[in-house]
């Protein structure tokens, strides 16, 4: 089971993609409108609430989750959600969207994997301009 916190553009994209692959996906977001924009084709569970709230995560059955993704726009919320998922609920894989490279390094220590859209996009643009070397 996969839990996604943050139903913005990235969260929605992930929810639809992973949902199509017959994976059991639960999406959490504090805004009802964000959840509704997933549309009727999304068959997974939707929960309104904050991802740092242990009670909300319990509602999402976090103890059964194999993967927890924190991909909200708010980085500090992602960090705290990820820490709650890892340290309090011991989710095997926790991936958080964190932009600051120093913070990325810091939270690796707590077995949190990170994704930085800015760095990833910059790398891709660099390859586009300079051509694919290596």
């Amino acid at each position, binding site marked *: 089971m996969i839990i996604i916190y943050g139903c913005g553009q990235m969260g929605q994209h992930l929810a639809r993609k992973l949902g199509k692959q017959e994976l059991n996906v639960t999406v959490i977001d504090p805004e009802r409108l964000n959840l509704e924009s997933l549309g009727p084709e999304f068959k997974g569970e939707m929960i*309104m609430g904050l991802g*740092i709230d242990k009670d909300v995560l319990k509602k999402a059955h976090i103890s059964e989750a194999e993967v927890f993704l924190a991909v909200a726009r708010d980085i*500090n919320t992602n*960090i*705290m959600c990820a820490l709650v998922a890892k340290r309090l609920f011991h989710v095997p894989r926790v991936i958080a969207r964190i932009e600051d490279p*120093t*913070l990325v390094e810091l939270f690796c220590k707590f077995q949190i994997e990170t994704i930085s859209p800015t760095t990833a996009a910059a790398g891709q643009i660099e390859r586009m301009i300079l051509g694919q070397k290596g």
Partner: protein
Amino acid sequence: MYILVVGGGKIGYHLVRTLLSEGHEVALIEKDIRVCEQIAERFDVMVQHGDGTSPALLAEAGCQRADVVVAVAGRDQDNLVVCQVAKDLYDAGRSKPIRTIARINDPRNEELFRLQGVDALISVTAAVANMIDLEITPHSMVHYLTMQHGHLIMVEVTLADDSPAVGQTIANLNLPADTILVTLARQGKVMLPAGHTILESGDEVVAITNMGQQTEVRRLLVGERVPVVAGGNIRTS
């Protein structure tokens, strides 16, 4: 001491004033430029405008040489990141570790903050709610003092006729693990409570308990309604 304060709201403002008057060197990081200007005008303090959770800005404000970092921003997640960055990035190679203090708004977040090594927590919400609760509930538990950074509290209960504890031995009460009945006053005499002591109506019992268990202690000694915990998460779909 050099004290770095993150968050210039009501708590941050008064904290800066108090710390300065005690002769400490203080720096403040605040994200609202107007608040920065106001505080810089009023106090002789270094004010840094920006996001206090940014490792670069914390370094600029001298986090490496700070004795204490106090995170009193409005959101728990920001305060956690401030403390984590201070502790894990800027603590290296120091003889004395940075002491981190965080404000938490949701008392349920306490567990994670402690687990992550934040040294001291200030839970404004819990403190205010407890005080109001004690004022609202008459003949209930009186809160005497707080020990161990707010972890332990000493309370007093006068057992009423309808208390579930009356007629029971202390052993039978099944008090929570971290709770001790320290003394018992009966008809003007002080007794040392033992497991076989049978509690009577009118007994004044003083107990030391864990902050988190006061509701259970109250239920056992006073026997009242279970407090309503605010929820507010709506499940859609």
